[in-house]
């Protein structure tokens, strides 16, 4: 499976040989000029130093981090436990656990969120008709145990 060798005349060969002797080093020097320029110009460094820049590091407002319920200062949420987000979620990462309040009405008992399987697609937020959930800007979520990824998002039972 050798590639066929294309026959080439000696004069052409020598011409090409000499040409390469001259253009080759020039092309290499051109490459070297780029790296030298980059080496001697520390302004080009674009590194963001993550743990050190924690204070100034801000995610964009649309960034999809971890799901959270929108709560007011009394920890009251807007969720009506309609279950649309649950249905919209592609891999059942949201558990709406309903309960009955004292008046016998179905309200949100627990808003359980399985971060371990969440894919941050944002479909739940699009599905919510009440604007009760959002994705926050949190990204420092790593943990040593899988069980810590089951989050209860609501602090209080839903109103209803």
């Amino acid at each position, binding site marked *: 499976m050798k590639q066929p060798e294309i026959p080439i005349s000696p004069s052409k060969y020598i011409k090409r040989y000499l040409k390469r002797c001259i253009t080759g080093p020039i092309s*290499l020097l051109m490459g070297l000029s780029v790296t030298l320029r980059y080496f001697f110009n520390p302004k080009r460094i674009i590194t963001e130093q993550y743990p050190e820049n924690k204070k100034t590091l801000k995610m964009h407002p649309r960034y999809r981090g971890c799901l959270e319920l929108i709560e007011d200062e009394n920890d009251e949420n807007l969720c009506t436990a309609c279950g649309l987000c649950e249905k919209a979620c*592609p891999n059942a990462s949201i558990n709406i656990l309903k309960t009955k309040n004292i008046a016998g009405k179905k309200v949100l008992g627990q808003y359980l969120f399985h971060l371990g399987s969440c894919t941050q697609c944002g479909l739940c937020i699009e599905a919510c008709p009440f604007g009760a959930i959002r994705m926050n800007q949190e990204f420092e979520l790593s943990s040593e145990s899988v069980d810590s990824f089951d989050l209860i998002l609501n602090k209080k039972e839903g109103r209803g």
Partner: protein
Amino acid sequence: MSSRKLPPGFREEVLDSDTEEYFVNMGPQHPSTHGALRLALRLDGETIVEVVPHFGYIHRGIEKQAESMNYLQYIMLSDRQDYLTAIQNNWGICLAFEKGLGIGVPERGEFIRVMLAELGRIASHLVFYACFGGDLGGQTALLFGFKEREMIHDILDEVTGSRLTTNFFRPGGSVHDIPDTFIPRVTSFLEHLEKSMVDYERFLSKNIIVLERTKGIGILSKEDAIAYGCSGPVLRASGVSYDVRKNDPYGIYDQLDFDVPITYRGDTYDRYVVRIAEIHESIKILRQCIKLFPEGPYRSKEKPSIRLNPGSYYSATETAKGLYATYVVAASGDKPYRIHTRGPSFANLAALNNMARGHKISDLVSILSTIDPVIPEIDR
């Protein structure tokens, strides 16, 4: 020799009986197989006699899973196919859904789509530049390519909310409108990119070692390129001018003025040149879009639940890798009956054996990187 049983997949007869051939496995974990691809090599010394790719190391059953998801949820899975240009996959899927729903996209929505898709194309080609340089042994090129790509992903992050898996387009438009900062950011990015590309091209394009290693290597003839179903830059480098954006336009590509870069030798270097030229074409498209960017609604009316009219729908888009075709079979209900996607990498990789035969292992690496495959798109 002939009595020895060849491993599965190999089929060529032994040609050179003087030397002992041996078999080497490249992958599934190997620094230059671009993911979980396994290449079984049949070598004669360092010369490749035959390459047999083995797939499925990242086969995630996306097509099966799609049958139990609704249409909207499937868009999320399309991100995970060609993750380098997830945004273009979103578009391809949404095009097919729009045909089934009979809805269109307002003009502003189309512009948003084109701009994000072209940004995605630049990002993907920059990753190609990076991997190409890296696979040739120049680690610095690897970092150069990613440097500008980060800026694109920062823009995508701001617009879509995620760096890679954007999940941004919906049938009829997109999830959000673009933020006000988008246009100025893209403008300044394009200026920066053009400046950097001068450096980057100087760094690799004329370098004699690169030329020596790529010119005349991995030649894919025009006929073979068509026969193997190659598409995208691989096809265009072989002298076939087929670009879905030009030859079968979708979106607003028929209103934009751009060229389809094409070269004729079909070797590794040409594929590199085509991709670099495509970056410049994408810059041109983006500049036009910025100039023409209209006001108005960014999406058409949302449907409460997406149910396609029963039937089968086909859409073709040009992603950075090539022809990305979606075939949706819809029955009643809100779930697709079957979704099949034709990933460009799958067909492009089919030509690998043809290209790599008779070359050295080092060439195989550079040929593979100019095919620029994304393995999850192949395995799905």
